[in-house]
């Protein structure tokens, strides 16, 4: 049985990765999961300098999901390279570094400094607030996506995955912009902007008022978007949004994703990623699937 896939020129032993921001740099979850069993670890977003993040409450539960407004707290690239990267290198898994920035220059600087690092792939989070333009996310403007993609590709030595926001009218337009800018892959979907009100305190459940909705509640939206993007672009897709079991992961593959990221489900079951790897293998055995690549995009 072959479970390996090729994501933008990088071979993954299986298509199961972690979703950025839900898995740290793998250290905390290595107590529950054998990281060697995963196709890859996508790290929490890292920027050139440390970010303090938002005030609390930063998370709130919603039916079938959760909202978060962590505010991309991270220790900065120096600490990441000295502490987190050597930890991940001890495992036989792919390292996907998620990069965030407040400006095009910050993205470019981070990507340039990662060029000679052991990262296998870079995932660029373009849902960060663009400080120069009043905090509007870069990822909601196709021209801006193409521009940032082009800029990071100029300095990147690893394949670049552009992570797309679903908070747009037509996500295929954003995916095409990334492809035109030279992206090696796209990942989707990032969280959907939402809000919850605490009726007992008569205020917002999150200090940031709004947050990103994730979890099983958003899965049908994510599958639809992965499918639509797969019909439009020729570069591979890393699919995510509410995956909680092997069956969910297989839906994304069939919709056109080459690999998947598992996020919020880790919070409900710290062992879930490894269970999904095993579940995909047993689905393949049961259904006599010799090569997992037969499943990718098989639903047209």
């Amino acid at each position: 049985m072959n479970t390996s896939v090729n994501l933008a020129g990088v071979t993954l032993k299986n298509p199961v990765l972690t979703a950025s921001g839900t898995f740290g740099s793998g250290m905390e979850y290595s107590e529950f999961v054998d990281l060697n069993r995963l196709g890859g670890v996508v790290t929490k977003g890292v920027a050139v300098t440390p970010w303090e993040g938002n005030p609390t409450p930063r998370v709130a539960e919603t039916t079938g999901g959760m909202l978060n407004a962590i505010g991309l707290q991270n220790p900065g690239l120096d600490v990441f390279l000295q502490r987190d990267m050597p930890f991940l290198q001890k495992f036989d898994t792919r390292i996907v570094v998620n990069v965030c920035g407040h400006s095009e220059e910050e993205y470019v600087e981070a990507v340039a400094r990662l060029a000679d690092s052991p990262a296998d792939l870079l995932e660029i989070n373009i849902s960060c607030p663009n400080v120069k333009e009043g905090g509007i996310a870069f990822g909601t403007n196709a021209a801006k996506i193409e521009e940032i993609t082009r800029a990071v590709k100029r300095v990147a030595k690893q394949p670049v995955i552009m992570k797309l926001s679903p908070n747009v009218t037509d996500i295929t337009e954003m995916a095409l912009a990334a492809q035109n800018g030279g992206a090696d892959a796209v990942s989707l979907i990032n969280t959907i902007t939402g809000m919850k009100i605490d009726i007992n305190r008569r205020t917002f459940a999150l200090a940031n008022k709004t947050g990103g909705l994730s979890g099983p509640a958003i899965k049908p939206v994510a599958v639809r978007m992965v499918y639509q993007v797969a019909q439009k672009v020729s570069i591979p897709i890393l699919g995510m949004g509410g995956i909680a079991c092997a069956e969910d992961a297989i839906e994304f593959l069939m919709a056109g994703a080459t690999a998947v990221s598992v996020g919020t489900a880790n919070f409900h079951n710290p062992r879930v990623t490894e269970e999904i790897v095993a579940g995909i293998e047993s689905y393949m055995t049961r259904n006599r699937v010799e090569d997992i690549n037969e499943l990718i995009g098989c639903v047209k």
Partner: protein
Amino acid sequence: MKQYRDAEVISAEQLAEGIYSVVLQAGEIAAQALSGQFVCVYSDDKAHLLPRPISICDTDREAGTLRLVYRVVGFGTDELSRKKAGDYVRILGPIGTGYEQVAEGAERPVRVLIGGGIGIPPMLLLAKEWSEAGYEVHTVLGFRNRDTFLLHDFWKYGYVHIATDDGSVGVHGTVVDAIREEKIITSDNAFTALIAACGPMPMLRGVANLAKEQGVPAYISLEERMACGVGACLGCIVKTRDVDEHSHVHNKRICTEGPVFNVKDLML
């Protein structure tokens, strides 16, 4: 080493209005648990994903049991309150850094344990440990009214002082009012005292002010909305005075570096 497992309910009871107690067969989790630590409790309902962090009230290491005392505040705790002996609950634990971090020893033998509302339960295991260690334990408990809980348990471990919001039992006022009125910490004994506290933030701020004013070291246990419970998501942070060693910003993770902190390290 944290464990993620199903734990059998050994017994369950209601202690007061909205306050419940459950004893779980938790094996290694109970054997390892330290005062001040907590467990994550998961709902059986797949539409409620996030764990509920609940402090450890008591343990029986030999029997491998864990006692949780909690307030019903929403779906997860309501579901837990309906569990009966023989049912199972999925838990993760033990989590966090508890009172084992307290650096002071015999030079501060007067231990003042302060609990407010649902911050009371975690003080029980600590009262037990510190009274067994030979310290003079004073427990100061703040309730809304005469609907109290766990008093019989606390009476086993030293002196118990009570404050109620409505004055129906003990001192009429806050736990800090009780400490002043009953002269538990005074300028005469402050140099021998140490405070441990858990409760709502306004109470903790009052305790922090008292500690500062009397020059008494204070360790407080914090509560926050959590997602992962293992230190990965950075959902539950507290602002710190200095740059934290792990985060490299002014934030510590309540689930990992806490929930118990030395109050002098925090920005409350």
